[in-house]
């Protein structure tokens, strides 16, 4: 009997250990671990799709004493997205780092991956804390990898803010254990009754996690940290790390705090989300550097995710299932799209030597595959068809109208227009007076363009294609996967 769940978490961990022990082979070990882990994750998801319930109690210790891992529809969906994106980032990172950084990147990256997989499969409040901390620490360390002053400062702030968040969450866990006597999600949910204790735990846990998800106005740490990190790390931070914290909020909201989380809390989250959409989109529009634009865009997209909450809280069960599916679809699409955007940004930065949007014209024109990747990512970020975001936004808007809470609609539409503005500002760079047919980059006078191989352009293009085509047109099975109705 293969314990798929344990392997999904253990493989990257082992990889990390090996990468530390054999630093000269770090790259090879890293890629091998990446492939194996992705295979594990995919097989877990396939089993979930087939209806097999997967639960693993490590060491044979059952709840409430032991550490359990479990995969349901929601975890499977996010597991697939996270592992595929991480695989793409790994492929991209193979040639991105020089020999010196490489030995530091791979172990940290694999630890981050371990934390991610562990987090998606965790069913126990404290286990969540541990994976959350591992995630935060490895992410901050990776972000500061370049050693440049701004990068280190930004990621130190990220680390501190993250620790504040996790400490708050931990206090919530402690109080939960005090009041409920158990840490297992399932058992705790049964023991929870509405009252001051439940509200306190709710506020603490959610507060800590909101800080980590960068919901407006707790988002201030994100743009500098994501913009300063190396491109593959930025991709992981925006697409995966932030998503992991959001997943936890969703999981706790649905599975633990069902009786407590009512329309009032939902409306608060929705309003903050609306603020994030407007503020993030506006700042992205005003950004002069590409990675900063992408980072603010993440703030906006996180805002969209939270705008589902007031509608879900007020809706009847069947409608809530539709919204839930749309929300997960939005999260998945954004993961692929944002990762693709950051990887493309990294390539442009490598070619041109900088990432100032106004001057990226020649670089963009010399890399048509990258231009396409940015185009697809942009389509997914704006929410134009045929991306998954379009479907998700349609569901969001139609529920907004149908439930009478129409005020969310103008915010979503304003965000869409602003996103269009900043995406097309980027894409305008792809059209220039035209080099001679067939010439590669470097034909222009003032810019000295570093040539980029074709293989490294592939992950970005593939990921954005998934966001735009696969998730846009083929997402219907997702609703069936998520069928396990949250209580």
């Amino acid at each position, binding site marked *: 009997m293969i314990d798929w769940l344990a392997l999904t978490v253990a493989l990257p961990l082992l990889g990390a250990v090996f990468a530390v022990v054999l630093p000269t082979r770090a790259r090879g070990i890293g890629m091998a671990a990446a492939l194996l882990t992705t295979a594990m994750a995919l097989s877990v998801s396939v089993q979930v799709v087939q209806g097999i319930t997967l639960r693993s109690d490590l060491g044979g210790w059952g709840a*409430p*004493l032991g550490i359990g891992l479990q995969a349901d529809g929601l975890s499977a969906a996010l597991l697939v997205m996270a592992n595929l994106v991480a695989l793409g980032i790994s492929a991209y990172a193979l040639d991105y780092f020089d020999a010196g950084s490489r030995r530091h990147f791979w172990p940290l990256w694999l630890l981050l991956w371990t934390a991610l997989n562990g987090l998606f499969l965790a069913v126990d409040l*404290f286990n969540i804390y*541990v994976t959350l*901390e591992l995630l*935060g*620490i490895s992410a*901050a*360390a990776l972000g*500061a990898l370049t*050693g440049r*002053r701004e990068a*280190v*400062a930004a*990621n*130190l702030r990220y*680390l*501190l803010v993250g*620790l*504040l968040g996790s*400490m708050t969450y*931990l*206090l919530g*866990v*402690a*109080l939960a*254990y*005090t009041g409920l006597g158990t*840490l297992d999600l399932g058992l705790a949910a049964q023991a929870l009754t509405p009252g001051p204790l439940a509200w306190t735990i709710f506020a603490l846990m959610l507060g800590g996690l909101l800080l980590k998800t960068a919901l407006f106005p707790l988002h201030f740490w994100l743009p500098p940290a994501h913009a300063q990190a190396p491109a593959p790390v930025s991709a992981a931070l925006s697409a995966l790390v932030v998503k992991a914290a959001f997943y936890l909020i969703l999981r706790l909201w649905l599975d633990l705090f069902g009786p407590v989380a009512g329309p009032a809390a939902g409306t608060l989250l929705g309003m903050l989300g609306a603020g994030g959409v407007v503020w993030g989109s506006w700042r992205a529009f005003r950004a002069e550097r590409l990675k900063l634009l992408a980072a603010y865009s993440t703030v906006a997209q996180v805002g969209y995710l939270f705008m589902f909450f007031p509608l879900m809280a007020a809706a009847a069960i069947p409608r809530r299932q539709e919204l839930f599916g749309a929300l997960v679809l939005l999260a998945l699409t954004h993961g692929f799209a944002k990762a693709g955007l950051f990887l493309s940004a990294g390539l442009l930065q490598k070619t041109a030597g900088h990432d100032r949007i106004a001057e990226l014209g020649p670089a963009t024109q010399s890399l048509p595959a990258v231009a396409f990747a940015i185009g697809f990512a942009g389509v997914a970020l704006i929410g134009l068809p045929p991306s998954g975001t379009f479907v998700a936004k349609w569901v969001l808007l139609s529920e907004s109208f149908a439930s009478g809470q129409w005020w969310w609609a103008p915010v979503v539409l304003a965000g869409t227009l602003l996103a269009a503005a900043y995406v097309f500002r980027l894409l305008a760079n792809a059209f220039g007076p035209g080099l001679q047919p067939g010439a590669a980059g470097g034909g222009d006078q003032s810019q000295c363009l570093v040539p980029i191989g074709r293989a490294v352009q592939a992950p970005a293009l593939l990921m954005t294609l998934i966001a735009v085509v696969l998730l846009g047109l083929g997402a219907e099975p997702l609703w069936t996967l998520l069928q396990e109705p949250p209580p």
Partner: protein
Amino acid sequence: MITQLVYGLAGIVLFLLGVWSFLVHDPLLRKLIALNIMGAGVFHILMAVAYRGLDAPPDPIPHALVLTGIVVAVSATALALTLGQRLERRDD
């Protein structure tokens, strides 16, 4: 019973003090100490919960949580200090 309450409340007070210090004070070292005090506060609460009276052995789970928490806090503090040191070096 009273002991538990005292420990628990002390834990909460420590936590709140830590939060205040984190938000108000600027230097890195103070923020780190504040975070550690927050952690200590949480551990206090956990230890209070573990107490099952003089006759029964204490609940082992909160102990495990505290130990893990300490390890995590130490690692995080170490990373923060390293990053801080890097910043200090560049200050000239």
